[in-house]
C-alpha cells in the first residue's frame, strides 16, 4: 500500500523469474517512531520469506516484532530501507481488533463482502472459517459476548477469510489454552499447505515456533536486529511434544535468554 510495497509487488509481476521472487522482502529496514520518545524500534532488518515458506519470529517483549509486521503489511511506513510484498499480506493483530458492531459471523464475512462475494455465499464460507477455529456455535455472538480466546479465534478466522497469499500473524494463539492451540496448529498447518501460503508468524512461544516454522528468526531488543536464523529441518507432521522440537527450541530459548539478559527485559 505504501510506495515501496507497490513497487516491489509490481516488480514481481513485471516478469522477474518466479524462482527468485520472494513473498516478503525487507532490505535494510529501519523504523524510528516519532514523538518525544523517538524510539529506534528496528534497525537494518534484512529478511526474506520465500513463497510457501513458514517463517517464525521470536524475540523479547518490546523488541519490535509487531512493528515489523506492521511495516510489512503497509500500515506503517519505514523510516528507511525497503519493504516488498508479493500480493496482499493479511495481518492478524496482536489485539483481536474485531468490529464490535458486527456478530462473529459478520466479522468473518467482512473481507469476503469487501471482495463483493454475495450474501449467501459469504455467510456459508464465513461459517466454514468459524468451524475451522471451532466456533461454529458462536456465529451470532457479538465480540463482547465472547471470551478472550474466542475473540482471538474469530480474528484468526477473519484473517483466513481474506484469502491473502501472505499471512502475517502476531501472536495469534497467545490467549489460547494448550489444547485449543494444538488443534489450531494442525488447522493452520493444513490450510498453509493447501493454499501454499507464505507466513510470517510472531510468537513468544519458542516451541510453537519450532512446531510450525520452516525457519525461526531471532530478534534482539532495542534496537530490533536479527540475531540469528534457525532453519527447522524436522519433518512434518510434527507434534509440539516431539523431542526434536524440544531440542531445537531449547537451543533457541538459550540464545533468547542470553539476548534478554544482555538488554534487560
Amino acid at each position, binding site marked *: 500500500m505504501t510506495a515501496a510495497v507497490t513497487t516491489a509487488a509490481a516488480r514481481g509481476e513485471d516478469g522477474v523469474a518466479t524462482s527468485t521472487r520472494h513473498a516478503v522482502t525487507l532490505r535494510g529496514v529501519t523504523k524510528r517512531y516519532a514523538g518525544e520518545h523517538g524510539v529506534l524500534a528496528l534497525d537494518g532488518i534484512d529478511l526474506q520469506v520465500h513463497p510457501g515458506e513458514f517463517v517464525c519470529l521470536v524475540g523479547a517483549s518490546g523488541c519490535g516484532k509487531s512493528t515489523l509486521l*506492521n511495516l510489512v503489511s503497509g*500500515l506503517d511506513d519505514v523510516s528507511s530501507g525497503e519493504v516488498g510484498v508479493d500480493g496482499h499480506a*493479511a*495481518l492478524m*493483530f496482536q489485539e483481536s481488533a474485531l*468490529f464490535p*458492531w458486527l456478530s462473529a459471523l459478520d466479522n468473518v464475512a467482512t473481507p469476503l463482502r*469487501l471482495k463483493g462475494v454475495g450474501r449467501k455465499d459469504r455467510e456459508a464460507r464465513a461459517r466454514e472459517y468459524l468451524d475451522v477455529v471451532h466456533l461454529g456455535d458462536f456465529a451470532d455472538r*457479538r465480540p*463482547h459476548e465472547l471470551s478472550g480466546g474466542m475473540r482471538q479465534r474469530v480474528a484468526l478466522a477473519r484473517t483466513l477469510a481474506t484469502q491473502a497469499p501472505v499471512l502475517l500473524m502476531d501472536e495469534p494463539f497467545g490467549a489460547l489454552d494448550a489444547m485449543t492451540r494444538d488443534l489450531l496448529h494442525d488447522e493452520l498447518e493444513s490450510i498453509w499447505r493447501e493454499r501454499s501460503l507464505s507466513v510470517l508468524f510472531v510468537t513468544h512461544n519458542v516451541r510453537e515456533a519450532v512446531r510450525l516454522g520452516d525457519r525461526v528468526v531471532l530478534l534482539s531488543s532495542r534496537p530490533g536486529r536479527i540475531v540469528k536464523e534457525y532453519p527447522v529441518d524436522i519433518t512434518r507432521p510434527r507434534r509440539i511434544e516431539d523431542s526434536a522440537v524440544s531440542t531445537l527450541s531449547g537451543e533457541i530459548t538459550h540464545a533468547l535468554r542470553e539476548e534478554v539478559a544482555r538488554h534487560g527485559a
Partner: protein
Amino acid sequence: MALEVTERLPGRDNTELRGLDALDLGGSHQRSRRVWQAAWPKLAAIVLALGAWQAVVLSGWKPSYLLPGPLPVFRELGHQVTTGDFWKAVSITMTRGLVGFAIAAVIGLVLGVVVSRSRVLRAAIGSLITGLQTMPSIAWFPLAILLFQLSEQAILFVILIGAVPSIANGVIGGVDYVPPLLLRAGRNIGASGLSLYRHVVLPAALPSIVSGLKQGWAFAWRSLLAGELLVSIANRPSLGVFLTQSRELGDTTYMIALMIAILAIGIAVDAVFASVDTGLRRRRGVTA
C-alpha cells in the same frame, strides 16, 4: 443517596435488568415493568414541575397575566388541541422540520465525510463550518429572501444553514475518534477509500454521528421556528407564527401553552434519538 447513586453508575446500568432476565420472567410482565421503570421518574418530574409552578403562582409573586398558572394554560392547550388550525399548524411545522432535517442530514453527512477525509478540505472549511454555526438565524434572513424569495425554500435554507454544520461536526468528530486499530484492521482486510468508510469508519463513528444528528435536530427546529416568522404564507398556519403572534398579542397563557406543545414535540423527537442510541450501545456491549 451517595450509595444509591454509586449503584447507578453507567457501568452498572444493566445489572438489574440482567438479574431480571436471569430469573426468566415472562416477557410481557417484564416489558410492562420496564416501561413503568422508564416512565415513573418522568411522571414524577412532571408532577413536581407543575407543583412548583402552581406554588409560585399561588404565592402571588407575579400577577396572573404575567405568569398564569398551570390550570388556565392546560385549559388553553386543551382548547387548542380541539381546533383544526392547531393541528394544521403542528403538521405544517413538523413536515417542514422533518423534510428540512432529512435534507440537512444528507448534506451534513456527505459534507462531514468529505471534510473528514481530506486534510486540505478540513483545513480549508473545517473551522468555517463551526463559524457558520455560530451565526444567528436572523442574519441569514435577508440572504434567504434574496435567494429564494418568500417561499418554503427560504425557510428550508434557514433550517439547513442551522442544522448542517452540527451534523457535519458530529461526523467529523466521530471519524476523528475511530479507534486506529479498527481502521488498520479494516484497511488490512481489504477496505479502502469508500468501502473503508462504509464498513469501518461510519459504523465506528455511529454513536457520535447520532449525537450530531440530535444536535442538528435541535438547531433545525429552532431555526425553523425562527424562519417561520420570515414567511407566513396565506392559509399555512404554523407553530412559529403562532408563537410570535402570541407574544405580540401579549397572551401569556396561550404562549406558555404553545411552549408546552413545542417542548412535547422536542421530547418526543428526543425519545427517538435516545432509543436509537440505546440500541447502538446494547449491540456494542457498551452497557456492562
